[in-house]
């Protein structure tokens, strides 16, 4: 019987949540790396026993952990993330030039084909690749050295590369998103990059439709339609049907279009999910009601999903990497909150229940669908 394993990164460790395909009775394993910030735990689609975890701390820096047995045991892997060539500068918060400084790994994205190939999105923004199972890391410097790089600025959370989307059918095509530089695409396996921000509009920018400078929060793609991208921007939910060459807004009837994560149903490429958050100055749900919104039309028309979610006095946030979907026949949707809850809907969002109530603040949620 198939099963699921949910990989949860929190402010104070990693947790693995497992259940059979019913997704009703859960086993909670953890904390792994207790006391450390776990920005992300990712599994290899090519070998589900291979996991990677980004473990970091303000005291001790960055560690990468690797497991070859589905998270039962872990070994520290390579943690040297060295920018290639001229480091250069980006803009600091006050607009002055500031040298690129490595701080942490926000996101790990394992190759769909090779368990030893994994990408790391880091702060200050850059993308690294390992082809030896995270033992060594090499930057793909064409992104950081893009001609617009000196104009990139950090968002409030730092200048992080937080989203990496790999085209499963074209190993040369990669998408990334950076706060607050925007979205970028490579068509040559990461050698060169170009901004893909046409159609984005950010009111905080002097030039509201600038080539770069947009605070993209998350990009999602269905593997069967790699040219269709969905984006949760700082404000606005956006859609592209041409691999990011242009974007149009699909916020539609959402109560508010600010938020962090966005996800696509595993079997319905036009069914997408967001979690509206009241505003960028109040990082909690509108009216104290935790509602996931689902669109079955690829955006614009949205419905609130509330069954099983708290509908009063709820003031948690859901971060950009904290939503995921499984691949079971009836698609499961998962998200984690800043209050330490991890929710699952085993029926595509119709009904929700809380897997675990009191973890540390959740930074990331991934799910593996196991045979």
């Amino acid at each position, binding site marked *: 019987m198939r099963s699921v394993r949910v990989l949860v990164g929190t402010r104070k460790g990693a947790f693995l949540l497992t259940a059979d395909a019913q997704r009703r009775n859960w086993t909670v394993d953890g904390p792994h790396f207790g*006391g450390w910030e776990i920005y992300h735990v990712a599994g290899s689609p090519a070998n589900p026993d291979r996991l990677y975890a980004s473990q970091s*701390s303000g*005291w*001790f*820096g*960055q*560690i990468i952990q690797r497991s070859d047995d589905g998270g039962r045991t872990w070994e*520290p892997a390579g*943690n040297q993330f*060295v920018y290639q060539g001229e480091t250069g500068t980006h803009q600091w918060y006050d607009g002055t030039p500031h040298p690129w400084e490595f701080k942490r790994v926000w996101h790990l994205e394992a190759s769909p084909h090779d368990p030893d190939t994994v990408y790391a999105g880091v702060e200050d923004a850059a993308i690294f690749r390992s082809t030896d199972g995270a033992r060594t890391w090499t930057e793909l410097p064409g992104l950081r050295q893009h001609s617009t790089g000196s104009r990139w600025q950090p968002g409030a959370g730092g200048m992080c590369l937080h989203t990496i989307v790999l085209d499963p059918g074209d190993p040369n095509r990669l998408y990334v998103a950076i706060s607050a530089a925007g979205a970028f695409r490579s068509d040559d396996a990461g050698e060169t990059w170009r901004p893909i921000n046409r159609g984005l509009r950010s009111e905080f920018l002097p030039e509201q439709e600038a080539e770069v400078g947009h605070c993209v929060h998350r990009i999602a793609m269905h593997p069967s339609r790699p040219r269709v991208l969905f984006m949760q921007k700082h404000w606005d939910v956006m859609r592209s049907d041409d691999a990011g060459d242009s974007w149009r807004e699909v916020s539609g009837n959402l109560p508010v279009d600010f938020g962090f994560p966005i996800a696509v149903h595993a079997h319905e490429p036009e069914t997408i999910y967001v979690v509206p958050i009241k505003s960028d100055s109040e990082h909690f749900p509108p009216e104290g009601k935790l509602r996931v919104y689902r669109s079955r039309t690829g955006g614009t028309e949205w419905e609130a999903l509330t069954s099983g979610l708290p509908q009063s006095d709820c003031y948690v946030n859901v971060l950009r990497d904290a939503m995921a979907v499984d691949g079971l026949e009836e698609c499961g949707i998962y998200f984690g909150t800043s209050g330490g809850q991890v929710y699952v809907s085993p029926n595509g969002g119709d009904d929700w229940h809380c897997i675990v109530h009191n973890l540390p603040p959740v930074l990331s949620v991934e799910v593996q669908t196991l045979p």
Partner: protein
Amino acid sequence: MIRVVLPAHLRTLARVNGEVFLAVPDPVTIRRVLDALEAQFPMLLGTIRDAVTGQRRPFLRFFVCAEDWSHGAEDRPLPAAICTGQEPLIILGAIAGG
């Protein structure tokens, strides 16, 4: 042998209990102790000092016989009490954070 006291998180990472014992060639300095520590426990590379620049991580301090040797003393010969193992070199994490 040189005795080194690590912060709790680094003991966990290195999978050691209690103090670490290291053979360090003369002259024994903090830099040489750290070189030996990272050679014996490669998972600690980058956790105490930057792996490229060698700069001490800002929230860590080096204490030698009750004195703070954190600032510019990496190459100063350590006292006999450390070299003979009578006293440990203490690597201390800042008491901070939530």
